[in-house]
């Protein structure tokens, strides 16, 4: 499928049916996208733990089993290896499964089937078998949850050829990127920043319009420093930009949105104007995905950089249980401080 097709708009009858748009949260946008695509493509099915009657522990699949029946929305036995393996099996035989990992910390047993099979079916068989699947993963910290419910582990997948790794940070992007992910003929790991599942509402027309899967979004224009981030830290980063503006510093804010493949051109273009870059992410610093962005800058934007690149990230330790977790996560102050350092230097 080429990019044009991936982004094709709604079949016109579906568009006609679309109800008047109401403001919805990020998680409601997920549900809306799932329902849209299930209506329009009967090979799409949803599977995971508690996704059926219960509608998922975060309610992402609320109402879907009632609407589409237990043959389209399947509760699985409690085993992530099972979910991953069945998903690969379904995808390779004409279905488009959208699997859910209940939490980030429970996806590790899925790594084998994703890396060894989902990411390789097309390659291994020279295109004979493919694996069009989406793995949805509620991701990240900050919701006062128990252990293993707060992890930023995207780096496990960003070095794996054959995958796409996506992370929306607004209701509209959640809707458009999830539609694109489902329509994508190759496997997509779709991280959902759970801390902002219900952070704010936004009008997201249920028009079936997908967003491109290889584009970074400039959320705010600026000229002094480029702040690059993804997931829930988009919130703090935008707040930091506000704060910097209050001090007369103009910060550009980029939501990476799709980590793999990375739209480095958008970042490079911004840095060519600002000369300064602060990368913000929740995951631990060392060998987090921020490293790749900094590396690309060191390779391709060195002559544009007026100051050393800065990374504002989780510390190189596990995210603590919730009494301390907010001290682990990067926050507005650390972002502001890094931006000022970048401006003070060079």
């Amino acid at each position, binding site marked *: 499928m080429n990019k044009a097709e991936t982004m094709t708009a709604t079949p016109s009858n579906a568009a006609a049916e679309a109800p008047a748009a109401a403001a919805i949260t990020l998680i409601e946008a997920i549900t809306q996208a799932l329902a849209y695509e299930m209506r329009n493509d009967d090979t799409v099915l949803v599977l995971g733990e508690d996704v059926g009657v219960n509608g998922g522990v975060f309610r992402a699949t609320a109402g879907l089993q009632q609407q589409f029946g237990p043959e389209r929305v399947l509760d699985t*036995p409690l085993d992530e290896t099972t979910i991953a393996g069945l998903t690969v099996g379904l995808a390779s035989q004409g279905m488009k499964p959208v699997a859910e990992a209940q939490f980030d910390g429970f996806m590790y047993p899925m790594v084998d089937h994703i890396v060894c099979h989902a990411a390789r079916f097309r390659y291994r068989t020279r295109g004979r078998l493919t694996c069009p699947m989406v793995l949805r993963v509620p991701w990240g910290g900050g919701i006062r949850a128990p252990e293993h419910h707060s992890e930023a582990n995207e780096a496990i997948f960003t070095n794996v050829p054959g995958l796409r790794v996506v992370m929306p940070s607004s209701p509209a992007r959640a809707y458009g990127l999830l539609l694109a992910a489902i329509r994508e003929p190759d496997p997509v790991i779709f991280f959902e920043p759970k801390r902002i599942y219900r952070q704010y509402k936004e009008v997201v027309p249920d028009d079936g319009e997908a967003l491109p899967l290889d584009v970074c979004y400039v959320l705010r224009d600026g000229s002094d420093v480029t702040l690059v981030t993804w997931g829930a830290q988009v919130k703090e980063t935008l707040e930091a930009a506000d704060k910097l503006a209050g001090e007369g510093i103009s910060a550009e804010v980029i939501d990476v949105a799709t980590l793999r493949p990375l739209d480095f051109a958008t970042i490079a273009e911004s840095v060519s104007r600002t000369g300064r870059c602060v990368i913000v992410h929740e995951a631990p610093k060392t060998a987090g995905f921020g490293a790749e962005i900094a590396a690309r800058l060191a390779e391709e934007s060195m002559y544009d950089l007026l100051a050393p690149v800065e990374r504002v990230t989780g510390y190189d330790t596990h995210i603590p249980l919730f009494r301390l977790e907010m001290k682990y996560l990067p926050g507005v102050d650390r972002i502001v401080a890094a931006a000022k350092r970048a401006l003070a230097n060079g």
Partner: protein
Amino acid sequence: MTVAAKFEIEYLQYLDPQGKPIGKLPPAFEDPKTLLPLFKQMLFVRTFDDKAIRLQRTGKLGTYAACLGHEATHVGIGASMQEADVFAPSYREYGAQFMRGVQAREILLYWGGDERGNDFAVPRHDYAWSVPISTQCLHAAGAALAFKLRGQKQLAVACCGDGGSSKTDFYAALNSAGAYQLPLILCVVNNGWAISVPRSAQTGAQTLAQKGLAGGLHCLQVDGNDLIAVLEGMRRAAERARNGEGGSVIEFMTYRLHDHTTADDARRYRDDAEVKDAWTRDPMVRLRNYLTAQKLWSEDEEKAWAEECARKVDVEINAYLETPVQPVEAMFDYLYADPPADLLEQREAAIRREGRA
């Protein structure tokens, strides 16, 4: 027809739901007095559980996994272990843990978002709660392997749920227990539900006990609301294990009378009628009736003990609430025995951000 193999899985129950003996009790229970401290422990557990739920509801605790209805199974498992044995819980076996010496304040600290809740004063070698379902079963198998290799007569006991018995780690544990003939008891606490997924959706197997056949283990199904059955099942499995006869899978039939956790609302997916029916098999009622019939227990004694339990739990709750939050450096100080230089720099930076030098 040539038969390659034949199996039978035994079911143990000694008291009916009203507490009346069904047939002869195992010899160990000829003197029912031994049951009394366990019954009192079960009551303590129920008091603790109830107060922990309330604590969560008032915002003073994080998500909490209640154990309502599991008291006989949990206390019975804990009571069947020796100090040197190793216990690998999932996340709601407080009854077993109290028997092993874990303190209520530690449990609260853990669910209160503080890692120190896992630093049990006693027992030092038991595993911490295990959130990733059934992974603890393999750690217990590893512990059992250590015991076996060292020629120690200890055993390892792991608990998982009915849902947990679908997890590949559970299968891996029973497979290795069989392959190495390990002193391992895998306790499947079948409470009917894995969050919203009923036992029937987890597997096509008639019993969860029979999963042990896949590894050639001893298999048993017991009434998990009948403390005597729990103790007798565990006794048999422990005896086998200590004698070098290998591992067991025991399925404890009980019921989750509460929501999955305080973050769950079970009304979304299960009938009130089913829960009501399950209350008729409440493990407390059964044992209370039996002990009362044996003249070992009375309403007055219950009232007095209930009050004492409440007092004891309140002491624990206060100890929990008064525990100050760990300093920020705690997130760095237990990662490595010998922390790398970069990490120490991050630690210093974090302390500086607190406004401390």
